[in-house]
């Protein structure tokens, strides 16, 4: 009981912490890659790709992450050997798929925030479309995209806790283990809260600073 609940279970906390960090890294990598591709689809001149991107974003954004996770973890195995993965894999993929929708919207609004005058000026200088994008539009879009993207990544870090539903090792799941083990829920949760703060507070500070810099650059 008491503080010893945390100190005695330090190894369990560390194990959970590593699980959360791994899920965050894999989920973020997947979400950034897929989200950027989706954003490209949503701003492309090709109508069907735009519609496909919109459908993906609206569906995934409005589907609760816990539902997506259990749908994948308990639904996919019914589709045969090919889809029989580990629970960790289901969790990581679900987290990536879900947050890709939010990454897409952040990137798309970044591109939308660059005024058309910038593109027109670049074109009047004779730059071809590729250079307009590469030299004028995307560098500016990148700048506005950083703060909202950072917020998506912070949300992703917290949302990795969803894997506790399918019993994958992370901070939240290990909290339940420690609660069962020590019957000291107050300090068990307190330790986990500290573990999450260790991750999310520095991320929040970093995003806040980037945000200020982006605001000055305008």
């Amino acid at each position, binding site marked *: 009981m008491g503080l010893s609940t945390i100190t005695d279970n330090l190894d369990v906390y560390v194990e959970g912490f590593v699980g959360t960090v791994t899920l965050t890294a894999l989920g973020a990598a997947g979400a950034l890659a897929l989200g950027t591709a989706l954003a490209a689809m949503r701003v492309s001149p090709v109508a*069907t790709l735009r519609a496909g991107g919109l459908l993906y974003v609206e569906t995934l954004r*409005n589907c609760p992450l816990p539902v997506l996770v259990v749908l994948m973890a308990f639904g996919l195995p019914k589709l045969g050997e090919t889809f029989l993965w580990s629970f960790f894999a289901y969790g990581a993929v679900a987290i990536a798929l879900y947050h890709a929708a939010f990454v897409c919207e952040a990137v798309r609004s970044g591109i939308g925030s660059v005024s058309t005058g910038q593109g027109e000026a670049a074109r009047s200088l004779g730059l071809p479309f590729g250079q307009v994008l590469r030299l004028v539009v995307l560098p500016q879009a990148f700048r506005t995209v950083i703060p909202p993207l950072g917020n998506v990544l912070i949300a992703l870090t917290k949302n990795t806790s969803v894997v506790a539903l399918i019993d994958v090792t992370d901070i939240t799941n290990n909290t339940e283990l420690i609660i069962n083990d020590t019957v000291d829920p*107050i300090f068990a949760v307190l330790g986990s809260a500290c573990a999450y703060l260790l991750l999310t507070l520095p991320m929040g500070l970093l995003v806040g600073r980037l945000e200020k810099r982006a605001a000055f650059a305008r």
Partner: protein
Amino acid sequence: MSTLLAFSDPLGPRGRRKALVGSIAGGLVLLGLLGAALLVLADAGQLDGDRWSDLLSPDGFELYARGLGSTLRAAAVAIALAITVGTVMALGRLSTLAPVRWLATTYVQLFRALPSLLLIIFAFFALPDLLGRPVTRYSALVIGLTLYNSAVFAEIIRAGVLSLPRGQTEAAVALGLRRSQTQRLVILPQAVSRMLPSLVAQMVVVLKDTAYGSIIGYEELLRVGTIAGETTADVLQSYVIVAVIYIAVCFALSSVARWLEGRTTRRYGRSAAAGAVAVPGVEDLAVH
């Protein structure tokens, strides 16, 4: 239209032809992916009628309706509580009394940085020890959701207050209103009205997060879906039905948020809407 076309010359006949060809090719690829998914589902026998008929029967319908009812009830109560606590915390952060400011700031920064699932677990397992009396699953879910979302709502409302021109406060002071009256009668109504789109967007988040109630055994929509899936052995189907219900309800609420956003822009002009956004962090205050 925020397509890249805004940054290129208008398409000529060749460009339009290319776009059309691309559109058809892209459409075929997407249809192909959809077809492949359906083929895999059909191959595994997951599309067979009798795998769906039990769940979509009147009995099944009643079950899901009950689950949805529990979900909406928990969400509604959590939203009402979170907005109330959030308003208090927002005013606390704007208070002229430093200790009040510190307390409110600590509350907001702490609970915003934690996963709502952990807070639900806290409310369910730790709160009974702290209070010395049992906490029902329903209360635990509502309390957990309230702790997290009140912090987010507080930030949204605070941003709304900060986005108002200083003249509003000055005019209220000039009229001889006390500070509490100024906040209550002049500042808050305008702040809430301006931030309504973000507030509604955050309500969608609360609604989605009620699904975490299933981990503590509260019989909301997801939990009901699990039970129905396990009794009929049609797990995939049951979860698909649950997902479709959630998507429909959340989409409806998201559409309200979008409509309100358009209204705010029409009412206050783009610059006002952008002014609200100029406060750091507001554009993404609705945290998934």
